[in-house]
């Protein structure tokens, strides 16, 4: 259905079409942003059908997402990228539901870069991230499908000279009810393409959904089990060379000199490319490139960070956390309430730098020519890739073609274009196309890292143990500030999509991501102050990582709530439950998870259960109960995780379940192993021996329970990760009495004393 045919030529045609006609015929859809939000976003859906050059005249393309050929072939343009989260199934489900075609009838194509055509309504630019695809496009894509269906029905009605209302669409055909006459979509293409776009289309009543809500099979799975799926690293372009790169191991350092005489003698090595802060070896194949790189005698000018260590960074964070921050939320009078509290609890929490370690190491294939540039890559941000390459090559953006691919993992890594920039820098010096592949070591040592955060948190409890004061100060790098500074020329788009509230926050210096999950805990917390202090680690680039702000904050908040339950001498589940009278969806998932996990049932010694709750990623509510056992040596084994999810309307229940399983394993890896440390300005870890991943023999059993709901959809790609970390930490407390306030979990501190 979609492997190597996926992508380039047709996508390029669409890009061309969009450039030529996207202003000539467009319709504006008003789409409600999220449940209860009330904010109306205008989303443009420029039509491609006006352009005769968009493939051929026989294609009916009423908007940027749907194309139907005379042969009846339905092509759906995937403006979101598939990185495992199932978006290449959920997006087609939304389109196909309203278009009235079977999933088996559709062919998928990676969309070309275009913020005009394919912006994420929640971001204003074409981007896949933040668990937004379903919640951001839930109505937009159904509208796109319904528009196409409505035109096809109108075309059929015209052919038969009957009333449109006597016709309906089903499985790629229009049927005239009274006579039973049928016309396939393919036969209606020419007529439908000539019709004006309908002013208004009717979306289905959810009770009539045939596809949405079913566990439809993943459309990307067949190619992923037989080796034909094409990831960025699998690109083959005629005449292509392969390169691998070494950047200065110290952040901020430069290349001083390189002796390449030995490297050049290696069979298959063609060229050594020198950059300001890196060297690349271009060869016939990766092995020769790697051997060539190893044979180089490189001298680096290590620059100002040559002595930097993790301890220096933590010291700076700890010092910065003493000063007041930008207020993210303030209600009541926390100082006064704290003074009147019966009991005061305070703690410092720390989470480390983390690398993404996608299984597909970062890579990018580039062909720079005098008048154009082609980029073959798997990216979460195709238009950023295009803009960056245009800037580097001096070409106008429309001369830069980005051919997107399946991503061998994203997790935020492929939201960044640093590796695309690097590949373009190399390709500018190479005649012909070059595929630049990072070794695992370079991938880990030159990632952009989840920031180290340092949190001071305190609460005052009344005589019943209830929190009456809550203060939380988060100190760390601002990813949002960097990302915002890099937005040009997309600044206005993003600002518009972000909305006034976020705009004001940004101007005030508040990083809304850094406090996400901390500013609005679901609990009744009168007298609350949450602040953010920005402190950048010198030289260390920071970036989003699966679960973004909540992965850090839910760990802190949910661990600390557990501390309060202990201080109040109450059961952690009951303690939370009593604070959720105003958040019924949160309370319901908490109860469901506890019930399914057998909360309160006895466990063997040094085993324990921990619970954690999350409300984030739009309107998603998750509760997780982790069951762990801790050996006498302090080794933690997560035995079982029970996860209750209320993410509103579910498009594909099996995808939601899979994302919880995935997020949970990802989070356990972080809790038990995840840590990037710096010594002498360098990342100390380099491969899967010292940056470990959870393996199948260490994986818990996972039970996911989905709550049925008709609320608007929330995000599901990340919350599983965010919630499991505190669930595990709290379970360790239950098992050992040791509170985990710093990640990763240190087994040395969990050893049973002899």
């Amino acid at each position, binding site marked *: 259905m979609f492997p190597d045919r996926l992508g380039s030529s047709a996508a390029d045609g669409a890009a061309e079409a969009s450039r030529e006609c996207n202003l000539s015929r467009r319709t504006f859809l008003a789409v409600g942003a999220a449940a209860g939000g009330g904010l109306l976003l205008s989303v443009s859906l420029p039509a491609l059908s006006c352009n005769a050059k968009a493939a051929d005249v026989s294609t009916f393309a009423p908007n940027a997402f749907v194309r139907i050929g005379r042969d009846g072939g339905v092509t759906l343009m995937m403006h979101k990228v*598939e*990185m*495992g*989260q199932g978006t290449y199934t959920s997006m087609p489900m939304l389109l196909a539901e309203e278009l009235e075609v079977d999933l088996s009838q559709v062919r998928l194509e990676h969309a070309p870069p275009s913020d005009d055509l394919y912006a994420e309504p929640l971001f204003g630019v074409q981007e896949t991230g933040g668990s937004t695809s379903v919640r951001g496009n839930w109505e937009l894509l159904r509208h796109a499908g319904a528009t196409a269906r409505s035109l096809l029905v109108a075309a059929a009605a015209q052919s038969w000279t009957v009333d449109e209302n006597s016709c309906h669409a089903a499985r790629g055909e229009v049927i005239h009810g009274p006579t039973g006459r049928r016309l396939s979509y393919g036969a209606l293409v020419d007529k439908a393409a000539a019709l004006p776009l309908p002013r208004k289309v009717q979306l289905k009543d959810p009770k009539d959904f045939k596809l949405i809500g079913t566990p439809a*099979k*993943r459309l*990307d*799975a*067949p190619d*992923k*089990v*037989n*080796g*034909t*799926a*094409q*990831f960025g*690293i*699998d690109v*083959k372009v005629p005449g292509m060379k392969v390169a691998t790169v070494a950047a200065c191991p110290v952040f901020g350092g430069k290349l001083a000199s390189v002796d390449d005489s030995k490297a050049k003698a*290696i*069979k*298959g090595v063609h060229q050594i490319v020198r950059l300001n802060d890196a060297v690349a070896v271009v060869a*016939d*194949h990766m*092995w*020769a490139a*790697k*051997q060539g790189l190893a044979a180089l005698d490189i001298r680096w000018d290590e620059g100002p960070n040559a002595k930097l260590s993790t301890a220096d960074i933590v010291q700076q964070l700890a010092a910065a956390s003493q000063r007041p921050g930008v207020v993210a939320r303030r209600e009541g009078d926390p100082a006064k309430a704290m003074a009147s509290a019966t009991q005061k609890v305070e703690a410092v929490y720390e989470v480390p730098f983390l690398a993404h*370690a*996608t*299984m*597909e*190491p970062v890579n990018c294939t580039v062909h720079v020519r005098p008048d154009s540039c082609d980029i073959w890559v798997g990216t979460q941000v195709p238009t950023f890739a295009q803009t960056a390459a245009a800037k580097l090559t001096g070409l106008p953006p429309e001369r830069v073609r980005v051919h997107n691919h*399946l*991503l*061998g*993992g*994203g*997790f935020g890594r492929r939201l960044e274009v640093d590796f695309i920039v690097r590949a373009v820098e190399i390709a500018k010096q190479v005649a012909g196309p070059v595929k630049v*592949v990072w*070794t*695992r070591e370079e991938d880990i040592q030159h990632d952009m890292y989840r920031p180290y955060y340092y949190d001071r948190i305190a609460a005052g409890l009344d005589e019943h143990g209830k929190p009456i004061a809550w203060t939380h100060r988060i100190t760390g790098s601002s990813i949002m500030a960097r990302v915002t500074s890099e937005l040009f020329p997309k600044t206005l788009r993003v600002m518009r999509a972000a909305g006034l509230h976020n705009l004001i926050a940004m101007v005030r210096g508040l990083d809304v991501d850094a406090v996400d999950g901390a500013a609005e805990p679901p609990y009744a917390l009168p007298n609350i102050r949450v602040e953010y202090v920005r402190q950048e680690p010198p030289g260390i680039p920071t970036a989003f990582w699966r679960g973004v702000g909540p992965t850090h904050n839910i760990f802190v908040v949910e661990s600390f709530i557990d501390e309060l339950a202990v201080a109040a001498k109450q059961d952690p589940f009951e303690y939370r439950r009593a604070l959720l009278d105003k958040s019924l969806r949160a309370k319901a998932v908490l109860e469901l998870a506890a019930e399914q996990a057998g909360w309160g049932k006895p466990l063997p010694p040094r085993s324990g259960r921990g619970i954690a709750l999350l409300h984030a990623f739009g309107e998603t509510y998750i509760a997780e109960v982790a069951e762990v056992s801790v050996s006498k040596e302090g080794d933690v084994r997560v035995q079982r995780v029970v996860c209750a999810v209320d993410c509103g309307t579910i498009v594909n229940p099996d995808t939601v379940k*899979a994302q919880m*399983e*995935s*997020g*949970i*394993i990802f989070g356990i*890896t972080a809790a038990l192993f995840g840590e990037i440390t710096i010594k002498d300005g360098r990342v100390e870890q380099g*491969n*899967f*021996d010292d940056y470990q*991943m*959870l*393996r*199948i*023999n260490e*994986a818990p*059993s996972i039970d996911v329970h989905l709550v049925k709901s008709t609320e608007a959809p929330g995000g599901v790609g990340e919350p599983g990760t965010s919630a499991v970390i505190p669930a595990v930490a709290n379970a360790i407390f239950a098992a050992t009495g040791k509170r985990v306030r710093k990640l990763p979990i240190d087994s040395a501190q969990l050893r049973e004393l002899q």
Partner: protein
Amino acid sequence: MAYTIKVNMVDHSVDVDGDTALLWVLRDVLGMTGTKFGCGKALCGACTVLINDIATRSCIVTIDSVGTAAITTIEAIGNTPSGKKIQKAWLDLEVVQCGYCQSGQIMAASALLASKPNPRDADIDDAMAGIICRCGTYVRIREAIKHAAQSAGTNEQRG
């Protein structure tokens, strides 16, 4: 130097240095990109192929050590009885997510099933612990191997 290797029953002649890893011969010289690069040090298993039916990390196998051994890759594993069952089980249980590690997972699982038609959990751990899945599809991998074993058992009874 030229080496002739047998991949998926077909002889290929390649002109590379003798220490070249089989992984890169498959991917970059022969263009068989179903076998994946993950770590280069036999730590992640993404590059797993079968050499004489034994699951092997192709990133640390040098081309001069291969000789006339039969190499099987993901592109042809569906032609073996166990590979076919594993692939079907992977689809039945919707194992894949990003899919990048799945070639290696499927190769290792196929080798396991071929040698142990009814693997126990400990067998699955032994055979599969070397292959990292960053998307965390482990729960489904385990179920899928058992599912494939059951279908294999059924077939054997029929035969």
